[in-house]
């Protein structure tokens, strides 16, 4: 098939690409741009490992034509880290065992990002419903819930700290999800 030129905006950067009109976004990300964080786990849009954000909405990149994403803001897992450090949700997934083999993790993190953007204080049922778009075979999901709760807490205290930063005495902010502070469940 003859290639056509498309302009995509991915993780805040614009790029022009010559792609076949029937190319899927996932293939363009993985093969043309080497953004291999989005994974292919199934043939039929059932696993969610390829989840990306399109203008903030979580979508399966394996069922999107890349050419149809022109003019939209595409965010992949590679665009989640903030200012050179792990985003709260990424740190929390590591600390709480939300990722084991890690193959489904990028998809889950994108799903959680979309969820929290829409609903910053989700109930357990909200979280379960949101996560049901993605499959994981390692974790049984339990530790993900803890990671998400912890990330929400971290975001909140980071916001509070950021506000305090406006005042001069705010030095010494410590990360609440660092290892030592992990509470044992009872």
């Amino acid at each position, binding site marked *: 098939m003859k290639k056509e030129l498309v302009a995509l905006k991915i993780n805040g950067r614009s790029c022009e690409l010559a792609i076949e009109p029937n190319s899927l976004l996932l293939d363009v990300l993985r093969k043309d741009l080497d953004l291999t964080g989005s994974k292919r786990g199934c043939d039929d849009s*059932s696993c969610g490992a390829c989840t990306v954000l399109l203008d903030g909405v979580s979508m399966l990149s394996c069922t999107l034509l890349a050419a149809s994403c022109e003019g939209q803001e595409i965010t992949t897992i590679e665009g989640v880290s903030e200012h050179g450090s792990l985003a709260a949700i990424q740190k929390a*997934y*590591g600390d709480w065992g939300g990722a*084991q083999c*890690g193959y489904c993790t990028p998809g889950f993190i994108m799903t959680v990002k979309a969820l929290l953007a829409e609903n910053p204080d989700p109930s357990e049922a909200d979280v379960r419903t949101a996560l*049901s778009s993605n499959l994981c075979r390692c974790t*049984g999901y*339990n*530790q993900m819930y803890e990671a998400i709760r912890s990330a929400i807490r971290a975001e909140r205290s980071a916001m509070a700290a950021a506000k305090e930063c406006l005042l001069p005495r705010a030095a010494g902010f410590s990360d609440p999800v660092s*290892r030592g502070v992990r509470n044992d469940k009872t």
Partner: protein
Amino acid sequence: MDNGFSIIGKPTAMVDAAYKTTGSGKYTDDLSLPGMLVGKILHSPYPHAHIKSIDTTRAEKLEGVVAVVIGKDAPNPYGILPVGHDEHALALDKVRYVGDHVACVVAVDDATADKALELIDVEYEVLPAYFDPEESMKAETHLIHDNKTHNIEKDYHHVFGDPEKGFAEADHVAEARFIANEVTHAAMEPHSTLASFELDPHTGKMGRLTVWSSTQVPYYLQHKLSLVLEMPMSQIRVIKPLVGGGFGGKSEVIPLEIIAAVAARKANAPVKITYTREEVFWAHRGRPRTIIDLKTGVRNDGRITSVKARVVQDGGAYCSYGVVTILYSGALLGALYDIPNIQYDGYRVLTNKPACGAMRGHGTVNVRFAFETQLDELAAEIDMDPAEIRQRNLLTPPCVTVNGLRVQSYGLPECIARTVERSGWKQRKGKLAKGRGLGIACSHYVSGAANSIIRSDMPHSTVNIKIDRDGGVVVYTGASEIGQGSDTMTAQIAAEALGCSLARVRVIAADTDLTPIDIGSYSSRVTFMAGNATLRAAEEVKKRIAAAAAKKMNCAADDLLFRDDVVSKRGSAPHAMKNNPGEEEETTQAGATVSGRVEGQILRGSLQQKRKDEGPKDWMTFEEAVVAAIDFHGALSGTGSYAPPQEARGGKHKGAGVGPSPAYSYAAQVAEVSVDEETGEVTVHKVWAAHDCGRALNPVSVEGQIIGSVWMGMGQALTEEMVWKDGMLMNPGLLEYRSPSSVESPEVEPIIVESIDPEGPFGAKECSEGSLAATIPAIANAIYDAVGVRLHECPFTPERVLAALRAKKNAKPLNLTEGIDPTAPVRFREHGGSLWFRGKGPQRHALDPSRREGPEPAGGAD
């Protein structure tokens, strides 16, 4: 929580967590090489057929096709077990299951390769096929493998003690048939392999081969590649990138791993092959459908007197791990409870379906489901609390079981006690609302097989450690990280043993050129075996550092304490420089140390440093000690290896090699379920899961493994099942296979029990598999508690639960399958009347048992 360690036992994020959460980590399919081609595989459409001819000319002529590989290109047989070399990379003269590998197209892109697959002309002569193991065992002609009479891969008949006498002594005997249907790993990462040859500078010809593959066993892959390609192992490098889950599905050599290498050789270019999800289902190697005829006798006091099991496994078309699976099924009847008499008859049967292999809880899960369910029935019969009957049959370790398994650490009593306590068993059992119930079950598993697949006295794991003047500790281990936390465990053990911080340790793993041999990540062996090897290597290096440091500090090496990046004399105040020992990993990254150097800059030796020194000190930093040791010894490295002790390697009977382990993990679980009596739907609300892992090296990982096992067990108990029709898999997708999503998944409360094994590294045993087997019977027993029906076939789908409920009420069975293809197997028909089961299926030979007239079509008489 202070256990006397600075790293062991502390919740630790995995050392590779950031690769996974940022998407920067590379799995095999994420890799590419310049000039790389893709391979696509042509699979057999028939369950059993001779290949009369393959014509690839049309495909080869297609623009963009570089090569077409067929069986003749690599005719040597291989197989994971030395007794089971019955596979070929691509079929030579016969295909044995729908999905068997026939040819591989190498092309410039996926679309071209797909097009070329349709241009390969294969002429088949269809043969009668066997789909049900009990039918298959009667086969006289058209055998699946010519040398396996009656299609029996292997059968074992073991008698320990005097089973008949045991039954005579019993007050109650239960006997029943249990069926556990076939399940598969469905790891999230589809199998993928990238193979590339380099040109040899001396001969100018194709030389060394490098293979990147999603494997749990890089060294076995290296060995099998060497067999098939007729290359020395030293010319083959296998690298395991990140692996997206294995669960046993990547613990043997999968055809695409060999095909990729053969294709790269034929195409003279790097070739990558990645299975589609459907192909992953066909590749399978999962847990076989198992028919268990089980008989158990107990006395009125609850003591088990005798157990007799006849197990038939539907092994699929190739041996795979089959011989080991059927042996585990029998061997692991022992070592959980004290059973004085055991009779075991196991049959591993070949059928025309994808080969079954090793899956989490290898061999033990289905038999454990039967045993724990039957024990529950017997408890009800003698009117004893189900938790109590289990406590009445405990082993008294250290001991050797009647079938020759050595048990040392034994946390089962505490597992039972703690699940009973946490779940409120005593207060709540039998008192829940109608339709809601509690069930208990126990299980166990090996911490690595005491005998390796290729039997030898060589170590099962070897680990090298290098410490150089950068002060970094590099651990080289062949152990394969597949998501279970192998690399993290290695780093933790090395850091704890050397008394340095985790940040100092770097793990280089699973690269056959760089790392010493380790037989792989299977049978839950890594923590115990590779962990012990790491500990020994670290102890060796530490001894060398201690010798040099002791000299400097004017004391005996034994008087030195290594901890938190400080080497100090015992009794001195070693951690004065640290404000907060035990929680200070940050310090090492933070910067300058007392000597004024920035940490990590050991360029000058101790001669220069001595100028600053003022006589012997009470302590020195880890780096100073390393400098002293390099000065003293000239180089600093160490090696450790592990082979299981002779006493742990089992008895002398035929098949005694499988089952023995240096240590066993133990688990007890209580499940709380509710059953909708209208629909038959079972909901698991919560599982309390206690697991004796010896010592929890990293509690986050241990809990994750326990929860994951319970969850996977729940999948097998309730929804997961491979549905076959005449050798065709009806549900080769993650949705149809019904892997549970977050909405269907219960809360799991992991309870860590630490029995501190005398031989485990820091007392650790396995934690990744043992819990799975308890979940299925715990749910079955809870269903009985809830609605009073005993289910003997898993998964407990709404259809099966409803059928059991109606049978209990003597109601007419519901015919959910009216109008469905009457030739479909019975167990398939009960799957309901959806139209997609009605397809004609593959063309069948006139002699095919499934075309026989009569009410009981082959493959379905269960």
